[in-house]
Every structure is written in structure tokens, then in C-alpha cells.
């Protein structure tokens, strides 16, 4: 029997309204007990005095690049970056090579994760074959093989009829459909948010309306089909309003936001620095404010990173030639503390919910809680210790982030997966 006791932490489990300072014991990978002065016949102990002990964080949106792009990231290195960010579970998007559009690829990812990952990896299957938007993929077979959602992330499905059919399947299989909302005709050729900054820099724009029209279309289709519909990395003010309205009508609509979209605006970017280039692009200050408010008022359900590794040589080019995306696993909690908790926008229970029980609910994962009998995944984090993020030391294979060198207040201290400490903060 293996046993880990986490001592004297402030245990926060929003799913059960728990917030108390005591011990937590995990036995054989399962939460065994929460209480004062738990027996010390432990094989391992962790002193969490002064720290928060939370259910293991779930990142419902990452790119692990394996199979096919192992020079950018592997399931192993991505999982290590996840652990360093306090995440015990990640959901990987299907845009690998080959695309995860069949049970074979899903099984390969599940198997590689079992062998090499230090955190739980849940694959997301493609909506359409090859994510080309033409023909539905083998969704039911992929579900048997282990996918937890479907999405053509990065290649939004433009054909509304196909989205409707996919939603019908998704509903019957009880899978959420996750959409990267971008009308690619409206955004074609764009490299940054369309607005004063793009005009000033002479870069082609990606308008907010390219996001908004797809969010609006999909909400209508979700209401017609009854499917669970989730908006990935929501970034524009209007899209957040649309999701808020749908929720008020009682629709099955949820949304996630990335830390960069509530931390940075287009005007904050260093001119022509590709560390600031991603989709959706950094938008205007008023959009950033809307994302913060949406997270605070519950319109936005989850924080997800859209961790998108790219090797240095691909990001060291003319801005318009650089690929989209930044890494984000290791800075997500610290940015959330900075922008949301320390800024007084959300309380701790709410913050924890955004990383745990909410994504678990959206994906129907039996996780995101510290209830006795639940999987022994725990994230231990501090609120006030100062540290500087150094991308050069990242566990990820890639370094594409605008946050290198940033001084943070609070962040992950230890990550426990199935009762095993897989990462610890090194002062």
C-alpha cells in the first residue's frame, strides 16, 4: 500500500464547499481521508503549511504535438510542463500528424501517455476526417478508445450543416463539441487583432466579428440539437455577451478563457514579436476587461491554456510567417492569481472551480474534487511567494511565451497525480 499525507494545508474543494486547514491522505492513488492529525504511518509526507491544497487542476485545451511534431513537444515533455504548472490532467487537441480522427490514433495517444506522461492525458477527437471540414470522423469509435470531447481546434468547421450533424452525434454520445470560433473567410490572412494597432503596424487583421459570427451560429445550432457546446479560448466582448445570453436562456453552452486573453491586450505587444502571436489574437483593452468580467461572473466556466509549443526557429521569422500560438501551462495559475485573485475579481473557491470542478463537469470527468474515493490528484499552490518565470528552464520543449522574465506572486508548489508527487517547486 502506498500512502501520502499532505499536512496542514488549507484544503479547498469547491465541489463540496470545503475550506479548512487540516490533513489529506491518499492511499493507492485514491483520496482516503480528510481530517485533523491523520495517522503518520505514511510512506511519504508533504508539509503544506501556509499553502492551498486543491483538487488537481484540469487543462481542457493543450497541444502536445505527438504524434508528428515531436520537435515541438512530446506527450512526455508536455506532461512535465503541465505538472510544473500544477495541472494533473490535460486534454490534448487532435491537430497532430496524423490528426486524431480515428480510434487508432486515439489509442496510440492513450498508450503513449500511459508509458511516458506524468499527468493524466485525455485526448480530444477531431470532428471531421483530417479536420478538413468535409466529412465526419469516427466519433463513436474514438469515444470507445477514450476521447472526452470533439473539436477541429485551429480548423473551425465552416460548414453549418456539418456542425449540426456533429452536434447530433455528440449529443447521442454525451460528448461536448468544442469549437475554435473563427469564420476563416472573415479572418483570412490576418496576423493580429484588427484594430488601431494592426492598422498602425501595417499587419493584416483578424476581426472580432470573425469570432462572434461563429459563436452566434453555433449557439443556434446547439439549441436546435440539444448538444453540449463549448467555446474554446473566448476572446471578444461580443462573443462573451452571446454566451451570457445563451446561458440565461438555459442553453447547454459553456466557455473557456486563456490566461493571456485576460492578461494582455493588443497594445501591450512588443511590435512584431511573435511571442505575442496567437489565435484568437490579443484583443483590445475593453475585450480583456470583458474576459475578466466573464470569468468573474460565471459566463466563462473554465481557464484553459491553449498551450501551443513551437520551436524557436519557427518563431524567429518575419511576423507574418510565424506560426500562431504560445506555451502556457507553467504560467496559467500565476497569471490567474495576478489578474483575478490578487486583483480582487474572484475569491479562492471560485478560482479553484475554474481549474477543477468546472472543466470536470464540462467533460464529464470523474475528477475535480477531493471527496474521499475520488482519484488522488492534488494541486498544492502558494498565494504570496515571489518567483520569476524563466522560459529557458521550461519543462516544455518550446520557449514561445511573452511571459518569460515576469515576476509572479504565488504559483504552484507541488503536483500530486494518483497519490504520487510528480513535481515540486524548487526555490
Amino acid at each position, binding site marked *: 500500500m502506498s500512502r501520502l499525507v499532505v499536512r496542514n494545508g488549507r484544503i479547498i474543494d469547491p465541489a463540496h464547499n470545503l475550506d479548512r486547514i487540516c490533513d489529506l491522505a491518499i492511499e493507492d492513488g485514491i483520496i482516503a481521508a480528510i481530517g485533523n492529525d491523520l495517522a503518520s504511518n505514511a510512506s511519504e509526507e508533504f508539509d503544506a503549511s501556509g499553502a492551498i491544497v486543491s483538487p488537481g487542476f484540469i487543462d481542457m485545451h493543450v497541444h502536445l504535438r505527438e504524434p508528428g511534431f515531436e520537435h515541438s513537444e512530446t506527450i512526455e515533455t508536455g506532461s512535465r510542463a503541465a505538472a510544473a504548472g500544477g495541472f494533473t490532467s490535460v486534454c490534448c487537441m487532435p491537430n497532430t500528424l496524423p490528426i486524431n480522427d480515428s480510434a487508432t490514433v486515439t489509442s496510440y495517444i492513450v498508450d503513449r501517455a500511459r508509458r511516458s506522461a506524468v499527468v493524466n492525458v485525455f485526448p480530444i477527437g477531431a470532428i471531421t476526417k483530417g479536420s478538413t471540414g468535409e466529412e465526419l470522423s469516427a466519433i463513436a469509435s474514438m469515444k470507445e478508445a477514450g476521447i472526452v470531447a470533439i473539436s477541429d481546434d485551429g480548423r473551425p468547421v465552416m460548414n453549418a450543416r456539418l456542425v449540426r450533424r456533429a452536434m447530433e452525434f455528440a449529443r447521442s454520445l454525451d460528448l461536448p463539441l468544442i469549437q475554435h470560433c473563427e469564420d476563416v473567410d472573415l479572418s483570412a490572412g490576418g496576423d493580429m487583432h484588427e484594430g488601431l494597432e494592426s492598422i498602425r503596424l*501595417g*499587419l493584416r487583421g483578424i476581426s472580432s466579428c470573425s469570432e462572434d459570427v461563429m459563436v452566434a451560429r453555433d449557439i443556434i445550432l446547439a439549441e436546435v440539437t440539444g448538444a453540449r457546446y463549448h467555446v474554446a479560448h473566448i476572446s471578444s466582448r461580443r462573443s462573451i455577451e452571446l454566451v451570457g445570453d445563451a446561458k440565461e436562456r438555459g442553453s447547454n453552452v459553456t466557455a473557456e478563457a486563456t490566461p493571456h486573453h485576460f492578461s494582455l491586450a493588443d497594445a501591450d505587444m512588443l511590435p*512584431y514579436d511573435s511571442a505575442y502571436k496567437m489565435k484568437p489574437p490579443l484583443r483590445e483593452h475593453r475585450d480583456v476587461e470583458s474576459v475578466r468580467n466573464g470569468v468573474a461572473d460565471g459566463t466563462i466556466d473554465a481557464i484553459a491554456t491553449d498551450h501551443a509549443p513551437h520551436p524557436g526557429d519557427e518563431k524567429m521569422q518575419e*511576423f507574418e510567417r510565424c506560426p500562431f500560438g504560445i506555451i502556457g501551462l507553467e504560467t496559467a495559475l500565476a497569471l490567474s492569481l495576478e489578474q483575478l485573485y490578487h486583483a480582487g475579481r474572484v475569491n479562492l473557491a471560485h478560482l479553484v472551480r475554474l481549474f477543477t470542478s468546472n472543466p470536470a463537469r464540462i467533460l464529464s470527468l470523474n475528477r475535480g474534487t477531493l471527496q474521499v474515493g475520488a482519484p488522488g490528484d492534488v494541486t498544492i499552490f502558494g498565494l504570496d511567494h515571489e518567483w520569476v518565470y524563466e522560459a529557458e528552464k521550461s519543462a516544455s520543449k518550446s520557449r514561445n511565451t511573452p511571459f518569460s522574465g515576469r515576476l509572479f506572486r504565488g504559483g504552484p508548489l507541488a503536483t500530486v497525480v494518483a497519490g504520487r508527487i510528480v513535481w515540486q517547486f524548487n526555490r
Partner: protein
Amino acid sequence: MSSLLDIESLTRHNIEAILARSAQFQPSPGGTFPRLDALRGRTVVNLFFESSTRTRISFEIATKRMGADSVSITAAGSSVAKGESLMDTLNTLSAMRPDAIVMRHSASGAPHFLSRYLPIPIVNAGDGTHEHPTQALLDALTILDRFGRLEGLRVAIIGDILHSRVARSNVHLLSKFGATVVLCGPAPLVPAEMAQIAPGVEIANAIEAAIRDADVIMMLRVQLERLHEPPVSANEYFRFFGLRPEHIELAKPHVIVMHPGPMNRGREISSEVADSQRSAILNQVENGVAVRMAVLERVFSQ
């Protein structure tokens, strides 16, 4: 030594200094440019990743008139055509220790990106749809030749504003000197945000409104190579945004007509106007050499 990447980041004082020095390099009527020794022993690489005739030749002549050696490289036939990255190309060139690089590139911000990593000064000879700083300087010198001032002038810029680096550089420069700039063109090519990038910028829907009481009319080339979806046909364009003799009547009597070249006669400007007394187009070309001499001198003087 300092790079010249754009007009936006220069102060009015910086620009005045360059223009004053440029005026000293202007040839006397019928004469030629002075031949100087100021930059003897220096090597300037003209790196043109995008085709250009007048800007490249203008820089080459300016370099030689300043006594420096120049080497010109065009992208076609170079290692760029073989798939080398911009960074590698520039690192390779840097290893040969030129003293400055004059660069034209189709990507906005390419010189800004490089200047963060290279120790060699870079002169931007046009980057994508961003800026073309020496063009705005030579345009300013041309306007000063006629009016003696920029302040208070009304300058109409007509054409594809969205894709024009000439427009952006001119807007920044003229705004810093207190001129009023009126932008006009087909609506999809004149984004409303252009009116906010600098003070004193207005947008007009019709060419007649833009030209009324103008002191200067700058026509822009229709950049077919950057238009992913031509918003109007050639015929429609000339009818509504082409500059014709009857338009000149609306402007101030002393109005001058400018064009950064190359012109598409019958597309954005009629031959009658291009060849008229009002045209300052060849003065612009002449001033290009003087301005670039001053810019090169500045690169090495700090």
C-alpha cells in the same frame, strides 16, 4: 550609429535635422549632386527582398555620392530563393561586416525584427504595408521646396491607404509638423482607424471632398500585388478615385501633385495631370537622392 526604421518613432526635431541636411545636398539647377568623402571606407549593403527600381537606384547613387561602397542584392537569385530564413541571410551578411544594411522587405516589421538581433544599423527602404520612411522624408523636402513650410498645409492622400507604407509614413511625418491630412479611397481600403493613428488626420469619402482647398495632392499606386480581393474594377476606380484635370480646379491655385511611383497612368492618375505644371513627381525623385544621402550620413554620425 543608429537605424532608421520608421517615421513614427522619430521626433519633429530629428526630422528637421535630416531635412535641413538634405537641402544642403540638393543639386543646383541643372547641376548634379555633390560628391563627398564623408563615408569613405564604409560599405553599405542594399538588400532588396522585393522588386524596386527607383528606391534601390536612389540609395545606390546616394551611397556613392557620399563616398561609400555599395553592394546590391535582390532576393531573386540569392540564397533567399533557396529557402534560407531571413535571420540566417542577415547573419551571413553580418559576418561579412558591412557598416549598414538598407533593406526592402515585403513583410511589415521585418527590419524591426532584425534590428533587435543584429548589431548593424538598418535603414528601412520600405517594409510591407507598414512604413517607407525615406519616401516621406523626400516628400516633405519636395513640399518644403514649394511652400517653405509644412505646418497648416492641407494634404490629400488618395488611393489604397490600407496597404500603403507611403501613406503611413507621410501621415506620421505631416502630423508631427501640424499639417492636416485628408485620406480618401475606396471604403474597404481606407480603414476608419487611420484617422486615429496620428493627430490632424481626416477621412473623406469622395475625391472631390478630399481635394477641395488642398495644397498638396498625393496619389498612391493601386497595389495590385497586395490586393487579395480588388474592391472595385479598374474602370470604376479611375472614374471615382482617379485624378483628372477637372479635380485640380477644386484645390488651391498653387496645388502640387505628387506620386511615389511607379505610376499607373489611366488608373489612378490621368496623363494630363501627371505631365502638367502642377506635377512635382520628378522633383520627388531628385529629392530622393538628397534625402538618402542625409539619412546615410545620420546612420554613421551618432
